[in-house]
């Protein structure tokens, strides 16, 4: 048999029909839905008199516009309430399991999927959210879809898809202390650009990727979309299998053993060919900070804000000038002298237990700068509970951070957690677009440790020089 890539193996297994010159019809194993991109899909079903074909393979949660303040208080945003109530009604009517605001396992859709053992190697997973790429960390083919496609999957449990191309991103070597999975992916995006992998599924390979924990792998795959890729994948291994142990929906006993025998085949065969290949050396990656309004506009923390004149095309120069103007930055300014007003630790990129542990270690026995308002938003109620069991909440609150309930929060500011105009934020989220965290707000994307250190010092610092007080 012809050698195949990991992507091709998962793809081939799910094609139920393919006609020449037409998209493949692909079976979907897990459909995750949330309150923002699903209401119009359910409405479409109703208008056509269709049902949800596989409610048993569909899971819903509320995350995008939920408040992160005290859950016992009424929600003030009546339109957000309507959207949440609509999801609850739709789930009741169509028989879909819902992790609502009061559920002890509620959280960001891409945090709870893996946490509950819904995300398993070899699955096809879709959700009306571009960061569905996160789940590819388990060797799934997982990608974001629009609402019309949400409706399509609800009605048919299938999707029509043109076969994407493949790109291998190979990371050799070992990371330096203080350099994280977030820095790997930001460095990749800075290298290949925000459209560098358009039309592709990325497979991340190499020693540095193999040595990452599952949570770190999720951070890398999460931001595949910021490099233009629909999906990112990492072949499953012992790290993956041990993560799955005891998760609520994960198979157990003999079923698990049978599954593992299948999953062990999920790797790229020797001799299989990718359409594109990129290679990076992990030991050369430094902590990253974005300076502009696109995730590819990033540099090493030791660099300065770039000069538009150094970019090659007039279109790029114009984009850079516009970004610097929006961000209120002057070329040549050292990154470490940029002062921040807000710090946000959270989002589907960096709100898992390991992220909070790493940030807590930085802030332990320190105080948040008087110029900074800082908050931690755990990715799920489970993450929150476990962090509290470890005492991380106290480390954060004693340092002056706010400790919130779970949700997407200030990553996209659909709830009340937003920046004011011209406020500057060190954020562990995934997008620094204009107005993403609030109209006129200025976002710098960094790792959780870098965000934590910026909260303490009031400006960016090179985390590699940090003096830990533990």
């Amino acid at each position, binding site marked *: 048999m012809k050698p195949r890539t990991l992507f091709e193996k998962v793809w081939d297994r799910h094609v*139920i*029909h393919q006609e020449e*010159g*037409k*998209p493949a*019809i692909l079976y979907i*194993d*897990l459909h995750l839905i949330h309150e*923002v*991109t699903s209401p*119009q899909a359910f*409405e479409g079903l109703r208008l*056509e008199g269709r049902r949800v074909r596989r409610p*048993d*393979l569909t*899971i819903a949660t509320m995350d995008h*516009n939920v408040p992160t303040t005290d859950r016992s208080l009424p929600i003030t945003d009546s*339109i957000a309430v*309507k*959207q949440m109530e609509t999801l609850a009604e739709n789930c009741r009517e169509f028989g879909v399991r819902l992790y609502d605001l009061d559920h002890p*396992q509620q959280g960001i859709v891409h945090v709870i999927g893996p946490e509950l053992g819904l995300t*398993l190697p070899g699955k096809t997973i879709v959700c*009306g959210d*571009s960061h569905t790429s996160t789940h590819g960390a388990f060797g799934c083919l997982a990608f*974001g879809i*629009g*609402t*019309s*496609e949400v409706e*399509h999957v609800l*009605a*048919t*449990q*299938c999707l*029509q898809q*043109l076969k994407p191309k493949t790109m291998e991103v190979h990371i050799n070597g070992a990371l330096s202390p203080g350099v994280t999975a977030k820095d790997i992916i930001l460095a990749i995006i800075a290298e290949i650009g*925000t*459209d560098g992998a*358009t039309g592709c599924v990325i497979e991340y390979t190499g020693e540095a990727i193999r040595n990452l924990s599952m949570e770190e792998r999720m951070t890398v795959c999460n931001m595949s979309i910021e490099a*233009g890729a*629909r999906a990112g994948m990492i072949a499953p291994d012992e790290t993956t299998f041990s993560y799955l142990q005891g998760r*609520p*929906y994960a*198979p157990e006993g003999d*079923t698990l053993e*049978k*599954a593992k025998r*299948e999953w062990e085949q999920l790797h790229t065969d020797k001799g299989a060919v990718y359409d594109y290949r990129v290679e990076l050396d992990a030991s050369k990656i430094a902590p990253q900070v974005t300076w502009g309004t*696109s995730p590819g506009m990033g540099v090493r923390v030791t660099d300065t804000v770039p000069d538009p004149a150094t970019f090659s095309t007039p*279109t*790029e120069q114009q*984009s850079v000038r*516009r970004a610097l103007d929006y961000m209120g930055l002057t070329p040549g300014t050292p990154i470490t002298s940029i002062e921040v007003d807000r710090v946000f630790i959270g989002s589907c990129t960096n709100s898992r237990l390991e992220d909070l542990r790493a940030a807590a270690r930085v802030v332990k026995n320190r105080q948040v700068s008087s110029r900074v308002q800082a908050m931690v938003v755990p990715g799920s109620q489970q993450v929150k509970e476990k962090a509290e069991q470890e005492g991380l909440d106290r480390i954060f609150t004693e340092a002056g951070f706010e400790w919130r309930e779970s949700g997407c929060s200030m990553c996209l*500011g*659909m709830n009340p957690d937003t920046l004011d105009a011209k406020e500057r934020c060190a954020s562990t989220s995934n*997008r620094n*677009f*204009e*107005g993403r965290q609030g109209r*006129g707000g200025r976002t710098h994307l960094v790792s959780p440790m870098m965000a934590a250190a910026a909260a303490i010092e009031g400006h960016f610092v090179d985390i590699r020089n940090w003096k830990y007080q533990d």
Partner: protein
Amino acid sequence: MQPLNQHRGGVIPLDRANVDTDQIIPKQFLKRTERTGFGQFLFYNWRFDTDGKPEPGFVLNREPYTGGSILLTRNNFGCGSSREHAPWALLDYGIRVVIAPSFADIFYNNCFKNGILPLILPEETVEHLFQRVDSDITQKLTVDLETCQIHDEQDFTASFEVEPYRRYCLLNGLDDIAITLQQEDRIRDYESRYPDYYLLTNPV
């Protein structure tokens, strides 16, 4: 879905690269539960000031571009969030064709589901069109999806490519779901061989 075969309309030059879906439709407008009514919020943060008054410098507020239905823009248009609210907002405003050197995948796909043609032209052709529009030589374009040709009212013509199946669906305004449901037997057959380890048997 409204079919699209031939479309003639005014060109709106949006001279920016990497326009993300957060700009096309900012998040504060994603809370509606309908597909319609988003046009008033298209490019909101660029189009209106913080008091909600039109920004006179923004292209949608400038003559002769108001009322245009063909958006001309730069590479990687529609990057970022998967929100289909972005094509809904474009369509509701009256945009039927977006011309760019490249598009982000999810947005590109979403356009076809909503009767919008995302039309890819080479970077130099897009640059050439921007110059013609800026100097008022090109004001209206006619896009013919039957022949995959585009021309203005002077001497500009170009051809473009679209995947045949997408073109076919757009020309005929076809509903994807009905097409997939024709494969019911194959779906059922696949489900009969479904691996038990993927079943979500453990209840909440």
